[in-house]
């Protein structure tokens, strides 16, 4: 336990770093916050007020862990106050004196394996899912960064999220484009969840190890199929390791550039698209996945009311909080997707897929929100000739 002064000092450090004094408490952030719409005790504006009053209680506030870091507030703020980044720093400070998410979902299991990866001496068995149809190599110009997909399929066995199909589809697509991607046997978790969970030290270890591993493959381009990996590698890694010397692209970016080189067969489907926060608002990639969907003959894209920058988060982020509010966000989002007339919801983040599938596995789910979920890569690989 630190003294009151030390806590205040730490808080002030964060506040100065994030320039929150721009805030005029207009409350626009609260008006769009997806959690604030349901949970009456969580409003970004209230947290901002506590911050402006330099109230050290903020550090112990359990609500700190409710934020989804979805960036809706950032999008609407005219005054350049980055609320979700403030939350990130406050969580890191909170961790410094032993605080933690009060109710980490899944009993904190995902964080456990992520932290286990932060040691350098491990030798993973990540290739179980690779079959002879997939052409891969250990070094090469193009690297495919798989992410935690092999772990999700094991840990959420009961839920059957089938996230590994994202990896196999991605490799199939790349093979079709004539690329044999390199994949790393000892790739680590990108550290996204630890970073947003305030475990900065462990995150930095993961980032260092990953960069070393990437260097070993002599890759010039890193392709990710996960929106969170993409954002973390592209935007967060340079903050600690400096210039990456590799280009990071999301599979949707890469594919939309190469659409001319790939032939897709017809598929009659009405689909809708869920913008992952890390790909959309945090990285500004809106058009590429839509271009790909539109390129498939017969597939009709029905936009939900909240799309692109006003898209709603899938309800949970970083395995830090999940509860009745998350569930309500998910249900509303699924209902919205179904109401467009679509029978398939496309996303390009495995986490969105897991969270929506979890909501769909509930016993009391109503008929008007039951819709199939698929990743963009899976959809494309279905249409490969």
């Amino acid at each position: 336990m630190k003294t009151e002064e030390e806590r205040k000092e730490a808080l002030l450090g964060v506040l100065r770093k994030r320039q929150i004094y721009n805030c005029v408490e207009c409350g626009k952030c609260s008006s769009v916050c997806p959690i604030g719409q349901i949970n009456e005790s969580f409003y970004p504006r209230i947290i901002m007020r506590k911050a402006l009053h330099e109230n050290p209680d903020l550090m112990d506030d359990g609500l700190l862990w409710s934020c989804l870091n979805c960036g809706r507030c950032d999008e609407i703020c005219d005054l350049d106050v980055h609320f979700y980044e403030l939350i990130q720093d406050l969580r890191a400070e909170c961790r410094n004196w032993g605080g933690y998410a009060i109710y980490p979902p899944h009993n904190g299991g995902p964080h456990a394996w992520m932290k286990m990866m932060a040691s350098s001496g491990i030798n993973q068995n990540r290739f179980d899912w690779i079959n002879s149809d997939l052409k891969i190599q250990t070094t090469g110009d193009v690297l495919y960064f798989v992410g935690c997909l092999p772990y999700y399929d094991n840990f959420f066995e009961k839920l059957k999220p089938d996230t590994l199909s994202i990896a196999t589809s991605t490799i199939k697509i790349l093979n079709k484009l004539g690329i044999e991607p390199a994949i790393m046997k000892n790739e680590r978790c990108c550290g996204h969840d630890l970073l947003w969970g305030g475990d900065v030290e462990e995150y930095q270890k993961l980032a260092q190890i990953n960069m070393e591993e990437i260097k070993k493959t002599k890759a010039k381009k890193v392709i990710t199929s996960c929106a969170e990996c993409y954002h973390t590698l592209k935007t967060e890694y340079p903050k600690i390791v400096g210039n990456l010397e590799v280009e990071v692209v999301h599979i949707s970016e890469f594919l939309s550039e190469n659409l001319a080189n790939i032939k897709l067969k017809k598929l009659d489907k009405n689909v809708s698209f869920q913008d992952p926060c890390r790909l959309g608002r945090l990285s500004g990639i809106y058009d590429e996945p839509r271009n790909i969907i539109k390129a498939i003959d017969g597939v009709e894209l029905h936009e939900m009311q909240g799309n692109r920058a006003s898209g709603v988060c899938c309800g949970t982020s970083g395995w830090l909080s999940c509860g009745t509010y998350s569930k309500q966000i998910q249900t509303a989002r699924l209902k919205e997707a179904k109401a467009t007339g679509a029978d398939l919801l496309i996303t390009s983040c495995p986490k969105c897929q897991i969270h929506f599938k979890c909501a769909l596995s509930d016993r009391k789910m109503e008929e008007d929100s039951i819709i199939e979920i698929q990743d963009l890569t899976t959809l494309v690989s279905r249409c490969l000739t």
Partner: protein
Amino acid sequence: MSEKIHSILESENVILQLPDSVPGQFNLRRIEKSPCQMACPIDTPVKAYLGLIAAGEFEKAVEVVKRDNPFPGICGRVCIHPCENECERNYVDQPVAICYLKRFLADYEFKNGRVKVGKIDRKKKKQIAIVGSGPTGLTAANDLARSGYGVTVFEASAEPGGMLMHGISPFILPKNIVRFEIEGIKEWGVEIRTNVKIGVDISLETLQKNHHAILFAIGAHKALKPNIPGANKYKGIIDFLDFLKKVNRGEQVKINESIAVIGGDRASVDLARSAKRMGFQNVTIIYARSRTEMPVPEPHIQAAEEEGVKIYFQTCPVKIVGENGTVIGIECLKTESVLGPYRGKRPLPLQNSNFMIKADKVTSTINREPDLSSFQEKDHFRFSVLNSFSVDPYSLSTNIKGIFAAGDCATGPKTTIEAIASGRKAAKSIASYLKRASLKKPDGERQPLEYEVEIQQTVHEEQVKMPRLSRYERNTLKEVDLGFSAQEAMEEAKRCLKCGPCMECDICNPDCSKRLVILYPQGETTGSLLRVQYDSFPRNGQLMNGQLIWERKQSHPIEVKSLMATMNSEICRGCGDCVEVCLYSAPKLINRGSGVYISKIDEDLCRGCGVCPSVCPSSAITINYFSDSQLDYLSRESLVEKKIVAFICNWSYEMTRDIEQISNLNMIRVLCSARISSAQILKTFEQGAKGVLGIGCYEKACHYSAIQETTEHYHVAKKVIQTIGLEPQRIRFERLSPDQPHKINKIVRSFCKKIEDLK
């Protein structure tokens, strides 16, 4: 269910024990009891069996009742139930029908076969003679036989049971119930010899020669005539015990037109109702006080009135009037209640309010005394002024060494439950006497306190009505009260307000020798130790073992909760996973409106096994005293030195005593192995463990039968660590039966060896 209790720490230092090295976890000796238990002369844990009935665990409830009372069926029918008078529910609507619920349990046992409770202690050579087989004698015989002594009961009449057999009418207490419960006592090895009168068939000397201790529990079977003019003058004044004896034996009673019963206790009402059934036309009861003061439950008064018994309240008899040598009536005075000089009300006769009650027969149930005619002067017994044995009030020993007296013959006429209590007390001091322990009252014995209960707003809910024979069917000796059905009993038991923090139900740990959560203080059978929330105590951050004397000066409020799952409704997603895994249907999905569901846990049904928190995706459920953070702390602390963690189920843990020498192994005790989720196992590895071993029970031996989930948790964790590059052999889950100490030894050793080899 949880409340802050300061008063525990108020009077003296309290001993806190730190069980099984759970850091910051304390056991606290409970000196408080619920009001019903305080009121009970034999200290029955009422709340415990009510809770079990509410949960539908009838057999376990019978066990709880029979731990303290060999006569649940009898008490459930005739007890004056002081517990109900003290019941906190009185301040809301009506008390919980504790007595009827006990009777329900006895009926359950009667129908479904005897429930055996506990076992006989080590056999001892000493022999004890008990004279009299009433409730006192048989309770003492039961207790002493269970402690391992040889017990012989001598009964003067043809059938054992004393007042239970002869003094209570069969429509209130059917004799097959009495026989059934006496059979139960015989099963402990008690020998009952009937038709033997001490002083006539066997002399006291012979008895003393052949036995190491003697208990007189001969009751008070001599009814006294009313102490008013005319009582000895006329014919027609009858002995009420004789009358009841005849009724009970099915003998013919001489019928007259009318009978007047003087007195207002249960025996009076009982006698009047019997007389009505025997064929008396006019039956009256004369009682000097008011209806509310009558020590008879209101349903019995009502039943008597329904059956045509006329009760004169506030009436006192002054003279028995006769003609030609036989009784024709009683002259009475009206009375009024006035406050007595000391406390309470007393009846004051009103001048000039004389009136006559006509009666051919008169009987009084007011007084009876022991029949001491068979004792002679050479026996040197000292008797009291009440014509009963003069005994030491604490030890119940008479003036002759080795001879004790209990029950009505020592205390004067009392109720059944007091007779049972007296028998228990006598058994205790006889055991001390035979062990040559002191019979004096120990100094500084702490008296239990009553919970200070605050009643919160409670829903008004009337007692469940006892089904009875209709008025028109009551001309035979068939039992009037028909008893609750299982449904009714559960409904009634749910009315209990559960005063105090702990349910004392013991379902979390039914075997006395393996208590983890609720412990009994030494030498007591009903006091329990509770677990105390650790954050109310100052901590020094170290693992502490042994005892800690808590000083009053440092008293902090202590939060006491029962060991069960609690749901955070803010976090619950309402997915229904907990509903699916719980075998006791404790969690239920509740619609909060607009399609939002949350799960709610029924406190009465939850057993705290911990399978629901281990499957909850949003970590909304936690187990009191077995929270995830506590488990984290336990494994983290132990992993500083030891590298293998074994999560061992509560019921197997006892067997691990001889394997604690393995230096690299730390054993963490959990209630059920299903409490450990796959994430918990992964976290243990993340903290630096080299291996995790889980030990649970076979499906048939499992106390919670959460078999499938446990296997899945270990399977998932295995797959994850395999992906990360660790050997799957580092996780193992084994099942065994808690009576296989060799097997557990073998499993643990082979697992530790395997982990050593893998390094």
